[in-house]
């Protein structure tokens, strides 16, 4: 997999990645409150890959988590391009919001 996640890789790779493959590859941090996972993906890669990889790693189902980018829901078919993501941007992983009463 080209976009193999590098687990807990330090962020100093950023500059290298940005300079090396500035237009080609992005480092994206995916984090819920406990874990942070870094992914290096192409700009045109669908984020679905990233999401499912994260879920698989964390042992969650895709339907129970919400990936947000700047408060905006990330759809599986989105790519970093469509979301205008920059290198080092963070995807937040939230739990599904469910509510019924206080």
């Amino acid at each position, binding site marked *: 997999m080209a976009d193999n996640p590098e687990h807990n890789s330090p962020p100093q790779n950023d500059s290298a990645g940005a300079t090396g493959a500035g237009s080609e590859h992005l480092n994206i941090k995916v984090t819920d409150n406990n874990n942070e996972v870094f992914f290096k993906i192409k700009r045109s890669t669908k984020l679905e890959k990233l999401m499912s990889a994260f879920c698989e790693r964390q042992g969650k189902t895709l339907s129970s988590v919400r990936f947000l980018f*700047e408060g905006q829901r990330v759809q599986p*078919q989105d790519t970093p391009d469509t979301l205008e993501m920059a290198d080092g941007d963070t995807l937040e992983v939230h739990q599904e*919001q469910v509510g*019924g009463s*206080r």
Partner: protein
Amino acid sequence: MAPSIKAVVKSSWGFVSSALSSCRSPKASDSAGTEDEAELPRKAPFFKKGSKLTKMTPQPPTPLRRRRADFGFPPLGSERDREWEQQALSANPHHFRRTTGHAHFAPFVAFIQNPPYPDTDDEADTDDQTASTPSDAHAPPAEHTTSPAAIAISVFLEAIPDQFPKPAPTQPSDPLRFQDDYLTSRVFGPLPQICGPLPAPCPYEISYEEARLSSIPYTPVSFDEQRILSSLYTPFGHCRAFPLHAVSRHLIVEELNQDSFLPDAPDLVEDGSDSEISSLHPEPQSQASVPVQVFPAPFFQPAVGFPETDDQDTDLPDAPALEPEESSSPPQTPIRQIAQPFFVQTPAPHHPRFLPPSSEPATPEPVTPEAGPANVLSPVPDSPGDERRAFTYRRNTEGKKFAIDLFKAIRNDHYMRQCRCGLPTIFDSKDSAEAGKGHLRFYVLDGNRFSVTEENLRVLQKKTDLQWHCSCQRPKKLDLVYRKHIYDRDYINPRKRPAEESEVELRAHTAQEEPMWGFVTDRAAAMTATIKTFLGSWCPKFISDHIETIQTRSRAADGTESAQTTDASGDRIVVKRFKRQHALPLGTAPTVDLSNIPGLRWTSDPRRYIGPENIKAIYALYVQELVDIEDGKFRGASSTPHLWMRLDAERHSADHNVIASINVHRTMEDMFGCVAFDNDEVRHEKWDQARDKYVKNLVGLLSFIEEIYDKDVEFTSAKSRFPKPPTDRRLGKVEFAQATGAAARFITWLLHGKSDWVSMPAKMMDTLAKMLADADAIHKHELVPSWVEYPGHNEEAGSDTTGIIAPSILWDEIPIEKFKAEASHEVRFPASMYPPTPARREMPNVVENSPVPVLKKRQAAFPEHVASPHYVATPMKHRKLAFVNPIVKVAHNIREPARVLKPAERKRLGKEGVIKAEDAYQLREYHLKYDNFLKTLEDNINLQKEFRQALVARRRVTKASPKSNIPSDIARPTTEDKEAKLKRDEETRRVYELKKSLSEKLTALKENPVLSPGTKRKAIREPLIDTPEDRRKFLDVSPITPVTTFKPIIKPGARRQAIIDLAKEATRARTIKQEHSPAATPKDRRQLIDILVGDEDDGAEGLAPKKGPSMEISAKKQEDLELTRHLKSEVEDSVAREINAAKKREAEKKARIAAEAKATRLRAELAAAGGLRNPKASLIAPLSQDWVQKVKDLSRANPRAKLAQTLEGTALDRRDFVEMLLPKTAWLNDNIINGSILNVAAAVNEAAASPEAPKCIAFTSFFYNHIKEKGPGSATRTMKRAKISKANFLSIDTILIPICQASHWTLAVVRPRDGIVAHIDSMRGGRGDKEVTDTIMEWVRATLGDLFVSDHWRVHQYKAPRQLNGWDCGVFTITNAVCQALGVKMEGSYDEGQLTLQRSRIAAMLLNGGWKGDFGLGGL
């Protein structure tokens, strides 16, 4: 029981018949025979109160139930009855028989009054009064006081109960005891009545009071019991036999359990009386001997070998059917093995010494010494006291086969009862049997339980051990039935709840009937067997006795014996008829040709053969019967015995006709069968029908008698048609033959009945028989005995005996029992000629069990009649009862509101206001509906009234002066009038056309610029003055409305001036405006002409232009006038126009002011409501069927399929819908919330059609958290996506921000135009959280930057429906978002109860892809 009694009992069975036939009085053979009769009744209380015999005795006088009294049945214990009984007993039985005709009851009565044996058990129970009487105190031993007849009956009566289980003395609390007493009292009570009417109460007619007074245990009798009782109760032909195989095992064992009956064989043999009786009555001997020999009872035999079982048991193909009780030869065949796995089929060695029980003669032979029971049956039980004597005796008598037969009997009994219990245990040895348990203990001698033969199987009885091996009989006991249901209480629905009391009762009720019924059936079956045996031997005797009595009596009355109708035995009716000539089976030749009888001719008098006085007597008899029936002089009853009882009781009264009563009753039973169980009403109805039928038949018979013997019409005509009596021709019309056939059948029916029931003089029967022969002959076209004569017939040739043919050659004598008055074709083509139809199976009286393999496991776990053992109907307890005002059914529902108020309206009006408003609506509707109706009605009525008045007036007028004075309005138009009208119409039409053409021409002329004024003038003048007549007519007929207002103003003098003025004015006006006025109408022109004419004549005459015969005006003047006229109308028009315009302006102004005021008000309201208005329609409307179905189908969708998509592209799958939305209490997830709210915004923007300047913006639920955590400025990208900018922010109507905090959905709203920031929390009724509004306000401020005017912005607390449950906040949030986006008030627009529907609506909307189409928001 005293042994002497037993001796008598043993020997006396044969006595019974002789005792009854000879019937010596008990007292006559007694030493104390001189006792006075008054003592006799007092002997009744001799019995113990509860003993069986007491229950059989007639009870002391008790008040009868009203029902019986209704029938006119006198009280049983009436003075007359007692008197009669005493007479009967005291008198010579022979005398009694001859005088009353009920001699056969005498022995019973005697027996009952004179009990045959005393009750030795309990003397203390006897009545004190009777005990104190000397005769009772010194009552001699029973065997000395009773007659043989009484003893015989006592034997019979005692023998029956002895077949039944007696309550064991060691078991005072035996649950069966109650039943035994019960059964005995119920079943044995009426037993004597089997043989005929006895003045004792029917058991099922004893009321509670009677029972209480008479110490009969009172139990309400169920229908089935009644049926049984009736079957026992109905004498003779109606007695139904129950199959013997229904005998219970209980009976077997109880029989064996009897200690009291140990037969003594030598006694039997040596009993002299027995031999004497048997020689006297050899025929009933064999049957009578059965009850005498108690121990080899008939009950055991059917239990041992069932023919059905043997036939249908497929498990034993090689086992020959053995019926040991039938075969008198020694059993050569191997004994049939019991088909159970552990039995090996080994042919048992033949043992010639032991015979099957039933092959034994009536008096059992003593066992031969070399095969003595003691030798055969080893080991002999150690403790003889352990076994009942009957058991021991029988085992000893029957030998080795006894054990295996008993085992088989038990097995068969199990099979018959469909019992699921196991068979008795077979022990390995006698020791283990002794140590074991059970009442009957089977064991094998050689320890080989697996090959049981009659050689090695033995049985022990332990009479102290009352435990039977199986329990299947136990639920039959009443208390156990109840206990079973107590058990069932836990059994019903064990998981959910204990059964209700009513349910237990229900089960108890349904279950209780069956075992009870089964129990009764068993007993009754056994009973019937005994009774059948009894009847088999005794009833014929009784019957013949009875008939003999009748015969004797009738002969005594007649003085002579009729040799013609009675045969040698003297009690038969014989129909004597000519030998058949052609009414014979096909192919059979007549034996004699009657047409060749010498001297055969018509008789001179058809009455001679029978005798005029006989005919008259019969005729009178039936006429009397007819009259009596017409007068109601007959008696009805529920059953034949009942009828007998009634007739018997009223035999002295003359107000009823016995024969009529009996015959109608017979007819009824022929028609309807047994009517004993119908209620009175039904029975009366049936009775009426039967009576009608009987009367019809009777009338037919009487008319037949008249026709044949009185009127002679048919006879004369036949005589005239045939010179000699024909033997094969029809003598009258077909109808006549048919009528005679009916009469023949009726007479046959009568005579059949006579032999059974009705005593009648023999001569009358003879007459009837002769009439029957006549009727039958006419019916079958045979020679009619009454109508012919020949030497020797009709005693004509009395003197000359030479040519007489022997009657036996010419005549047939057919006993009435065999006589059938069937139709000729049935004689000619009898049923035997045709292949027999498959015989219909006789319906057994007891439900037949389907053949089931004996030892196979049964499939059905429950009895079939229990439809569903687990099902218990839901009790009615929890069902709500709705009160329906009965007035509603007749009156209009005045409380029904005409319009359902919206929630907001309801809220505004309050409870009282709602009711008032609804009432108002209702009333309005009501009046609308009913006032119109009433008005129409009133109009109609008035119209009718007027019409009627007019009609009356006209009539009056016509009547008063038919030719004159007719009111013109009602008078018919005459022909003259009609013609005139036609003429007038025609003229009108012509004038109208003329005017039209004129106006057209005029207009054309006037507007033609080419023509010179002169030509114009000429042209105008010409048509106008076409002919003077035309013109006159034209002027004359003026159908047009009155002319304009100023006409009256113009006085003749001022006319000219006015016209001139007008013209001037008009000219002035014309210069101002161009002429646009329309062409002058004919109307105008007419006025014009009016004026014109008036001008011409210049004077008062001008107003009457008609008068002028000819008028001419100058063309110039006409033109001027026309112009003037035009001008005038224009002036008028303009004035009117101005006035109208002024009015319009006024109205517009008013409307504008009102609209402004309204707008102001609305604006004020809107401002107060936070910029929200009321909805125009219901916010949450029901779904259409299509959508409902689609929503339903969601649950079956593919779980991975993408069912819908939100606007941000999130796929919604089945889980989102089915788990997170549709269940009533599901908590909504962000997918649903965001999908819905984004769609709301989209829908509003689409409606606004301004994609670049959105009216409504919706953020997702993650937006708020984002700006809260990251700060208000962190959402630029999101806002850019949502097309919000600083520039357009203030032009946005609504911004919707769903918030999920702590598992609670709320909605934040920004309304930039109104400057409102709000947070709507459904749990707080719409009020918001300050933290949220602060955050949002921060975001607004950050977004607007320098455009933020703090005065413009405020936090508004909206009111919204309050959430009371714990799950609907998401739905509230969505619905509030809809309201906000539309600018609609939330509170009052919906309520919490609608939100379950709203869930479906949301689901459907999401499927639909937004709030569009069916879910469009435009209508709100």
